[in-house]
């Protein structure tokens, strides 16, 4: 049937998005109706988008070119190209949008009559559309336009709650991303200079090797800023907490992945990897991001800032996979390259699911308690049991615990790291061993971090009034998160179907298929390496652990006999009662790691005592502990101060206000032009 082709499905999905946005604007007086129409439109459109993408990946391997608009102005034509890679990113975008929109129906209730909800919907849909255009852009000019629209709209979404902090966050975000965009623009210009074309799918043979390396560096900086890799990650911990939670779910879940798309599309597909150092550079950046991201996340007590730093970590893990694949492709090892890039793409998908889910969970907590500070939470598992279970699922997924999806992709990343070790090739061997160690360390730290997040905010007693009065969030919010949690579990248990999807994408970009190498049945995925066959079966592990738990329970029951339940207060060491203040705090929990990693944090502490009549009875004591934001203090601040000083000096010396000085500038310009005319 004609209307079921991927292109027409995508076309209809875009039309429905647009209609939803327009309807949202028309119903601006009725926030309820407006939310319902806009978000259900999004859900429907995203389902169509997902169908289109799946159909594209699974059945049609031909690249589709859709040009809805051709202009007479040179290079300005909207040309959309759908191939397997674009389809894959549209697929993950659509799945996330579907869940987030479902969630938003409930979540946006607390904005009614406070903010312009219909404007929010229009921006939200515009943001989704701009990402679709980024993924399908066929020429660099259109790509850049879509990229900038995405940046600008997300800026407005970040400052949507418009408080002072948000405006600063928005400013940092837009300045950083525009610096990145400038580098992208230079790279596109280099591309045009040599090939006389902005076609992304064209050939890059005309570009000399040095220019290619230069383009690689510019692409890396440009996309790196968007992805939030260390050291250009500074905008992430500001922008994500400032945005409304459904937007930060989209931003962290899929927007930073546009950079991963860009890296694969432009460096792997367009430039073709020639030099080994490209991959090694990406690998090193990935290692640093993975370690530092999680290390800074540990010290955060603002739930959304913590999650933002985890995005840095996960982007690092994705980049480790990407780096290995680049190294492997440059060495001509197609199979390993395919494996590594599948790991990287699968982790992109997984991260979208669980990080989107975690941000939605943070939104639920904020919705119920009106705070983002985990030191003020506690005991939420009794008030919001459904949310708690889902946040636990996502936490397990991000910590790469077995029955969930994070484990699968990290396992594949490990396997590709081990496989690249070849005897007699010292440099890369050392780096990949270090990378494996770094990955292990970041996994352990992430687990610690989520023990802290879950333990402090959901377990124990409520630490403040707002946590005490929390109530379960609306069903639509829980449904949205539930779908994501289900996906996490299904991918974790049955990874091979999703690996097949990823494998088709990898086949379309590199021409290698790894699914054959990952032999085994529906449940088993193993990758043969030279030494011995490594195999893993998540579902078997899950079944085994379930059996062990049940068996242990049965054994205890059998041996111990009937257990009588006795309800009694916990022994309180002779105090009259236990108060929430006696609980372990997040600061206390992270203290050992703060001491171990003090070289990173440069922590400081201060005890202020107000003395009373006797030194044994002080009136008040204040204990303050802080860590230094190293990058901001030692990299960004000196740079900003220098720029400010330079600008001020220019203002004082060049823009003096003297008419004569201005006349002299013009005169000098005229003379130089005349000289140029003579000599040229």
């Amino acid at each position: 049937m004609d209307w079921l082709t991927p292109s027409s499905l995508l076309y209809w999905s875009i039309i429905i998005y647009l209609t939803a946005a327009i309807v949202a604007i028309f119903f601006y007086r009725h926030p309820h109706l407006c939310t319902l129409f806009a978000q259900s439109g999004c859900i429907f459109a995203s389902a169509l988008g997902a169908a289109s993408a799946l159909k594209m990946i699974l059945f049609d391997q031909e690249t589709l070119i859709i040009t809805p608009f051709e202009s007479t102005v040179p290079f300005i034509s909207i040309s959309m190209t759908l191939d397997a890679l674009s389809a894959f990113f549209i697929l993950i975008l659509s799945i996330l949008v579907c869940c987030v929109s479902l969630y938003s129906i409930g979540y946006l209730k607390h904005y009614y009559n406070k903010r312009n909800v219909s404007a929010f919907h229009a921006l939200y849909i515009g943001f989704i559309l701009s990402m679709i255009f980024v993924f399908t852009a066929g020429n660099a000019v259109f790509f850049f336009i879509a990229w900038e629209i995405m940046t600008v709209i997300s800026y407005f979404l970040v400052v949507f709650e418009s408080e002072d902090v948000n405006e600063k966050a928005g400013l940092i975000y837009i300045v950083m991303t525009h610096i990145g965009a400038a580098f992208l623009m230079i790279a596109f210009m280099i591309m045009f200079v040599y090939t006389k074309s902005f076609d992304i799918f064209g050939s890059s043979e005309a570009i000399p090797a040095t220019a290619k390396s230069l383009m690689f560096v510019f692409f890396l900086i440009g996309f790196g800023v968007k992805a939030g890799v260390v050291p250009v990650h500074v905008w992430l911990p500001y922008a994500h907490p400032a945005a409304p939670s459904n937007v930060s779910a989209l931003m962290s879940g899929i927007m930073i992945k546009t950079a991963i798309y860009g890296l694969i599309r432009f460096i792997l597909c367009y430039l073709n990897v020639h030099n080994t150092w490209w991959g090694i550079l990406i690998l090193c950046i990935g290692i640093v991001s993975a370690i530092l991201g999680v290390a800074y996340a540990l010290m955060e007590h603002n739930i959304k800032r913590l999650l933002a730093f985890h995005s840095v970590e996960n982007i690092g893990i994705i980049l480790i996979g990407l780096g290995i694949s680049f190294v492997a492709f440059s060495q001509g090892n197609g199979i390993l390259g395919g494996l590594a890039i599948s790991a990287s793409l699968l982790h992109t998908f997984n991260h979208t699911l669980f990080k989107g889910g975690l941000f939605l969970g943070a939104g639920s907590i904020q919705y119920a308690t009106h705070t983002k500070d985990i030191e003020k939470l506690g005991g939420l598992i009794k008030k919001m049991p459904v949310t708690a279970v889902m946040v636990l699922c996502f936490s397990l997924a991000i910590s790469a615990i077995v029955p969930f999806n994070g484990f699968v992709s990290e396992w594949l990343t490990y396997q590709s790291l081990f496989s690249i070790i070849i005897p007699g090739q010292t440099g890369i061997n050392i780096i990949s061993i270090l990378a494996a160690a770094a990955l292990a360390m970041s996994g352990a730290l992430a687990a610690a971090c989520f023990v802290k997040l879950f333990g402090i905010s959901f377990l124990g007693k409520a630490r403040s009034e707002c946590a005490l009065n929390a109530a379960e969030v609306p069903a639509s919010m829980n449904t949205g998160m539930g779908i994501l949690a289900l996906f996490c579990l299904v991918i974790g248990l049955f990874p091979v179907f999703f690996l097949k999807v990823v494998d088709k994408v990898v086949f379309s970009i590199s021409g290698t298929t790894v699914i054959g190498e990952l032999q085994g049945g529906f449940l088993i995925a193993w990758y043969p390496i030279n030494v011995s066959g490594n195999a893993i079966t998540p579902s078997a592990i899950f079944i085994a652990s379930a059996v062990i738990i049940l068996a242990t329970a049965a054994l205890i029951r059998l041996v111990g006999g009937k257990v009588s339940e006795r309800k009694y207060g916990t022994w309180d060491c002779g105090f009259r009662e236990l108060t929430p203040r006696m609980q372990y705090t997040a600061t206390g929990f992270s203290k050992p790691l703060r001491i171990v990693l003090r070289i990173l944090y440069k922590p400081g502490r201060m005890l202020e005592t107000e003395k009373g009549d006797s030194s044994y009875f002080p009136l008040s004591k204040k204990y303050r502990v802080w860590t230094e934001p190293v990058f901001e203090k030692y990299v960004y601040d000196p740079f900003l101060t220098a720029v400010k000083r330079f600008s001020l000096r220019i203002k004082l010396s060049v823009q003096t206000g003297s008419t004569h000085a201005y006349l002299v500038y013009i005169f000098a310009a005229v003379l130089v032009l005349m000289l140029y005319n003579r000599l040229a």
Partner: protein
Amino acid sequence: MEFFFDLLSVLVLLSSFVLVSNKKITAYIKTFQIQSALIALIAGIMGWSIAVNEDKYDILIICVIIIALKVIFIPHLLYKTYGNIEYRVEKDFFMNIPIIVLICCGLVVFSYFSVSNIGSLTGFHINHQVVNSLSVVLIGFFFMISRKKAIGQIIGYLVIENGIFVTAMFSTNGMPFIVDIGIFIDMITAVMIMGIMVTRINKKFESINIDKLSKLKG
């Protein structure tokens, strides 16, 4: 014919040298008047020959407009503006006159150098008339820089305009009529606005020394 034009272009150049070596504001205005008269003469001769040969009268009309505007009306306006300002003795220039004249000589050499490779407009040889009139543009500009008082800037602007007009005349035998008219209208507007501004500056700062304008900077 070419002989007349060579002579007149040299005279126009000379008049701009006279301008930069003047010290009094009334003398600036008078020199500008003389320069405009010379330009009107050039336009008259060129217009006459074209009227005789090709039966077109637009350059003659422009000649009349120049006489009316630049020789009579604008100098009159400037005298009036100057009259509104109380007479005050102030040093008007940054450098002393001999150095200014030497720099202007340098500018003439520079414009000769810069135009020397586009002599092919009227033939194989270098077009000296264009060199001279281009030098007038540069000298007018330099005059604006070297004078402190606002009337100096107005005169400098008018000299630049004169230079551009003569350059156009010599290189293409006159611009299209409508362009010339447009330029004249621009010029009248500019001079009127600048006249008003000078009076305002004088009221505000009790001087027409435009150095004081730097106080306006935020």
